[in-house]
């Protein structure tokens, strides 16, 4: 390869734009811009919701009006004008959820382009997908096969009609609308998201996944996901997300609630690749999400794995409330920030039951002029005898203009607790890169290799089908960060 060719390639790589930045041109039905009780009613009526749901939304909305945006985070947040957001946007065509033939081919093409095939022939084997486009779920695959096992996997708007008793019982039970500013907002205006119920004693026969796509301009996405694993059941669920490149920041304020009953296990994985904004920090998604799981039953387990590479700002703390005795909470996280991206993420492990265990492995990688914070709380309640926690928190810096920060909080109210915290900060060394170069591995590949090695413990937690994708994603998000 000649020198000029090489320079060209580096140029391409550095200026390579976000791969999923295209937008779909499709006729949309949208709510008028802005937020009011009328908008809340509009969304609720669009979904043809029962009265109690609307009441709940309105209560949440009125509560939200009394709140102020939080300001304890480790970054400056430009004030968001909530009247400049469209709270509902859906493709115009009326979609029959049971038949893919009814789905607009433009939408199928969009998901095809994102690597998510919804058509019968090309579906990922062993993975059922719910595809959410702006405010609505457009299709859910393998629904019938799952239903044979008693597994319910559908859009939450559909669950409200088909299984209202389950939704009513659990929605807001782990993340009440009073929890925080964004959870109140979400409860008022949430549009779609996935609903999962795994009955007693059932091991879900395939991976479940939801793919979130923001498409419309000036629109916020407020999805709500609710997963209930009944006694002795198991489910592994994965969400992926992308959005077009736009100059304006777009808000994504989701709520995810997990409930694990006795001896149940929920494994929840996220590969988050929202549009991160350009290299100067223009545009990008604000990813402000409340995710929490409750280990209700004894011996239950909830495990969060997240690979966060996208978004202008990622601000979330997937947490576990360990109520059941002998229950286990896990949090495995990789957060990569490049250019002007910001991440303030971590977890909360609340030990309530006896003999509860939690494990936290957080890997933060900061490149460019980005800032990456780990913020975590380990709380051992008074009655949580023999609780154990192990936290490992590693940061890697690439270049000398990025920042890594850690804010670990530990509250222990029971003297039988064993809590350990390990932390490290390292820098990708010129020496490591040169060593790779000397073996014929180019700099971009070398960074990918070194970063993947750094995150190996977390990546190993991902379902096989997605681990390889996540590895590639890590390398891609750091392209142009060295050299």
């Amino acid at each position: 390869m000649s020198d000029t060719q090489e320079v060209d390639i580096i140029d391409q790589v550095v200026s390579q734009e976000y791969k999923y930045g295209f937008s779909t041109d499709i006729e949309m039905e949208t709510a008028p811009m802005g937020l009011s009780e009328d908008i809340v009613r509009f969304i609720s009526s669009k979904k043809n919701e029962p009265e109690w749901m609307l009441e709940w939304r309105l209560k949440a909305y009125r509560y939200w009006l009394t709140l102020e945006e939080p300001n304890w985070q480790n970054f400056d947040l430009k004030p968001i004008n909530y009247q400049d957001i469209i709270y509902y946007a859906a493709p115009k065509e009326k979609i029959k959820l049971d038949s893919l033939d009814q789905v607009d081919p433009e939408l199928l093409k969009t998901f095809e382009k994102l690597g998510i095939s919804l058509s019968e022939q090309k579906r990922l084997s062993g993975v059922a997908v719910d595809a959410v486009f702006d405010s609505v779920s457009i299709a859910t695959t393998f629904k019938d096969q799952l239903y044979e096992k008693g597994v319910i996997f559908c859009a939450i708007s559909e669950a409200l009609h088909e299984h209202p008793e389950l939704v009513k019982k659990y929605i807001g039970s782990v993340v009440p609308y009073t929890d925080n500013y964004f959870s109140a907002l979400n409860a008022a205006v949430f549009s779609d998201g996935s609903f999962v119920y795994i009955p007693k004693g059932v091991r879900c026969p395939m991976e479940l996944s939801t793919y979130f796509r923001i498409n419309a301009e000036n629109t916020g996405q407020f999805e709500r996901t609710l997963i209930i694993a009944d006694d002795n059941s198991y489910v592994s669920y994965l969400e992926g997300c992308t959005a077009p490149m736009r100059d304006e920041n777009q808000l994504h304020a989701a709520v995810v609630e997990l409930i694990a009953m006795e001896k149940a296990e929920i494994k929840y994985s996220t590969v988050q690749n929202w549009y991160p904004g350009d290299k100067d920090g223009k545009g990008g998604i604000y990813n402000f999400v409340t995710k929490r799981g409750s280990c209700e039953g004894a011996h239950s387990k909830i495990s969060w794995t997240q690979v966060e590479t996208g978004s202008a700002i990622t601000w979330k703390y997937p947490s576990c409330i360990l109520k059941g005795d002998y229950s286990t909470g896990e949090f495995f996280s990789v957060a990569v920030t490049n250019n002007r991206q910001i991440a303030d993420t971590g977890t909360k492990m609340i030990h309530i039951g006896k003999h509860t265990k939690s494990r936290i492995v957080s890997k933060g990688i900061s490149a460019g002029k980005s800032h990456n914070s780990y913020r975590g709380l380990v709380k051992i309640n008074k009655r949580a005898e023999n609780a154990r926690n192990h936290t490992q928190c590693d940061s890697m810096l690439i270049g000398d203009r990025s920042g890594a920060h850690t804010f670990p909080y530990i509250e222990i109210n029971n003297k039988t607790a064993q809590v350990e915290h390990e932390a490290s900060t390292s820098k990708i060394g010129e020496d490591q890169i040169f060593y790779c170069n000397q073996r014929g591995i180019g700099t971009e590949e070398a960074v990918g290799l070194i970063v993947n090695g750094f995150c190996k413990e977390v990546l190993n937690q991902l379902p096989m089908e997605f681990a390889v994708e996540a590895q590639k994603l890590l390398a891609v998000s750091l392209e142009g960060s060295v050299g």
Partner: protein
Amino acid sequence: MDYRPWSINKKKMLSINDLKAEIEGKKILNGLSLEVKAGEIHAIMGPNGAGKSTLSSVLAGRTEYEVTSGSVSYEGKNLLDMSPEDRAREGLFLAFQYPIEIPGVSTTNFLKTAVNEKRKYLGLDPMEATDFLKMMREKMDYVEMDKSLTSRSLNEGFSGGEKKRNEVFQMAMLEPKLCIMDETDSGLDIDALRLVSNGVNKLRNKDNAFLVITHYQRLLDYIVPDFVHVLYKGRIVKSGDKELAKELEAKGYDWIKQEVEANS
């Protein structure tokens, strides 16, 4: 000298001509010239600070060093124009004096990436996993490397001897044409030294060449050089055969320094 039928009609591999290089304004190489042909082993010896490691760094393409004049031709191409990774893909290998640790990346994974990057450069398809593992097993025998080392993180927690054996193992896997060994013997006990040297001796053939940089004659008992060069103040001031190394071992470097000063 042992008899090697290929020593006639040897191909020119590396020509260094009047090379000058500096780091942070400090001149280290001051007009170094050297010819290496395929099938040859050249030993580079010299006192501390003579420029031995700088020579290996410049040849491998470390950017901290600035080449201010002179030329290096490798297999007829201008080596100095190539990126470090292309030099490697073209068959230049540096066995590091201090091999680098890469946590979380196994030697297997690292080498698979390296081998396939080289193959891509040469227009070949990636190697089949089974072929790759077979090759690993074969080459591990060269340095009697323990299988468990290849699944551990690269060089992390390896002993000095394990690191150096791993370097020679990597060399075996990448099948380079020009191997530069930068003080591979430093920090090795006699058993490790023998293992490493045996590996190198198994690897040598009529098509490859070795540049062995060392302080001590002892390595050259095992890896027998065709030529020995003494580097001093950034230039080769004396060349000879393996007997020169023995002379240096016996007499030290002072007499060479005096000779150089007297002639200048």
